[in-house]
């Protein structure tokens, strides 16, 4: 009876795992087909693996330029957002001032703000300020920090012992040095978590690049998302090359999560559940 239960359980799990893997498998296999196979062949596997498609990713479009823009955007977002969010969080966690509670409630209420509500108003602002086709939208948003990251850092800073800052103060450290030389170096797991999640946002976001970048200054998300970037001489879209590009675009994301998973703070996923 127990053995039957186990077998059923594993059968279900393996079946589900296959179902979950199948779409990704479809992407990989499609990126290795010829154009005619991609369009018309009902066969699952290609007759011959077309590794050439991966070569075409670089030859038919300025892939490296898109990649460079993605990287620059990611770095700007990560550095500025992590610095600002942790700085603000330090203030909320360790300093006393009138109005702090109300201000922190504002931070939390920003967590609950519907994410699409500000897309258009900010778009109007940035186009009016002529910041289209620049990195400024990402830099400004990063420098302002973000509610989720502030919350994350604050929760961690709150748990650090008070003796730590008292000792530093006796030694004549100012608040900023306490933050920069004691708190930040002692919260590397949170810094890593914050950086990884900010990277994930900057790398995969499609809305901002498609609003703020033209095709000449596009990043990978916009290039892979836009049709007719990888085309044959007649102007027809080469979808299997686009698939190959999508896989190359996906790779850094998987690598970073794979390498970074052991740093990701466990309680991130449960943030906000417990009152």
């Amino acid at each position, binding site marked *: 009876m127990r053995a039957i239960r186990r077998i059923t359980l594993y059968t279900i799990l393996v079946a589900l795992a296959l179902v979950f893997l199948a779409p990704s498998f*479809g992407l990989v296999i*499609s990126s290795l087909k010829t154009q005619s196979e991609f369009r018309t062949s009902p066969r699952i596997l290609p007759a011959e693996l077309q590794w050439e498609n991966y070569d075409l990713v670089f030859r038919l479009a300025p892939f490296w330029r898109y990649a460079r823009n993605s990287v620059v955007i990611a770095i700007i977002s990560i550095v500025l957002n992590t610095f600002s969010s942790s700085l603000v969080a330090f203030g909320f966690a360790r*300093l006393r001032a009138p109005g702090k509670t109300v201000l922190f409630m504002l931070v939390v209420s920003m967590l609950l703000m519907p994410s699409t509500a500000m897309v258009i108003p900010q778009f109007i602002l940035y186009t009016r300020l002529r910041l289209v086709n620049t990195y400024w939208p990402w830099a400004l948003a990063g420098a*302002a920090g973000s509610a989720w990251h502030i919350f994350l850092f604050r929760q961690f800073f709150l748990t650090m012992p008070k003796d730590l800052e008292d000792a530093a103060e006796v030694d004549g450290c100012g608040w900023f040095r306490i933050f920069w030389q004691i708190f930040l170096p002692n919260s590397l797991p949170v810094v890593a978590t914050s950086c990884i999640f900010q990277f994930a946002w900057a790398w995969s976001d499609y809305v901002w*690049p498609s609003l703020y970048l*033209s*095709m000449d200054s596009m990043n990978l998300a916009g290039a892979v*998302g836009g049709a007719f970037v990888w085309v044959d001489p007649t102007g027809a879209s080469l979808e299997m090359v686009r698939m190959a590009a999508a896989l190359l675009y996906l790779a850094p994301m998987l690598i970073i999560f794979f390498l970074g998973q052991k740093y990701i703070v466990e309680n991130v996923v449960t943030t906000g559940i417990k009152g």
Partner: protein
Amino acid sequence: MITETRRANVATPRRFVRLDQAGRWLRRRSVREALTFYLFISPWGLGLLCLTLFPFAMGVLISFTNYDGISPINLVKFTGFANYARALDDRLALQTFSRTVGFSLWLVPLLLIASMGLALLLQQGVKGLGAFRAVFYLPTLFPVVTTALIWLTITNKNAGLLNAAISLVRPGTAINWLGEYALLVLTLLMVWSGAGQGMVVFLAGLQGISRELKEAAMIDGASSWQVFRCVTLPLLTSVIFFQLLVSLIAALQIFVQTVLLTPGTGGGAQYGLGRVPKPSIYMYMNYVMVQILGFQRFGYGTALLWLFFVALVLVALVMYKTGGYWVYYEVEQD
């Protein structure tokens, strides 16, 4: 002693005394600490003012005008509540709205069942837990662009993996999935790419339930279904509530996936967000984007946006208020 003080008072002119007082006030620890606090949170504060509240106010103002996104400011006219009146009378707005609500009410429970189901299966002391968890979590890491591309490809009528797989059982299957069942494809996409996230949250929640409680119930003769129904489920309600709230609000705002599932007209991504998706997956936020980015109707589009925003906030509030009736918190809420 007394004379000295008196002399000092006489000798120092009044404004110096005041400056001195200000200096002493500034040197006070609590004051310095407070000023440092405001300095530390100033990046966020400035961002809130300039990048959130200001555009927000501007957006609200624009919804009362005929702004088109390009005209100089002096040509913009106030039109009062005309945009709002028009929005409430707009059949397409109502249609896309009810489609979005319908879709969300169908997607959210599915997502919940999928993510809770996966977590419960993995909770049974499975060998290779890490591998299974990674497989189910993997799709949540995919950028939306990649996810949409995957589903476009595998649901392709002539060469898609889905039809190819069905053809193994029923040769010659050539279903035009995106033509006839776009809503189903969108649902599958959302469940596939979202279930892993919820699963991780549920797994964390399940870990928080003590074994003793379950074992006590077992000893009292409860079947495993009864243990789930009467112990596990009630203790999971706070997680369920959180997942419901987050995924409902997210589902109502869907628009990127629907645009990306509609193969592009025109090159490049710019303003691709303003594309009209296939009719069956034409959602409310798409309608807003079409009005603003497609037709340059910024005034009308923002009016539609704010009406929706109010609706979203109301939904969240109602859920939050009614949550108290069925959500069990182990710790008293502040």
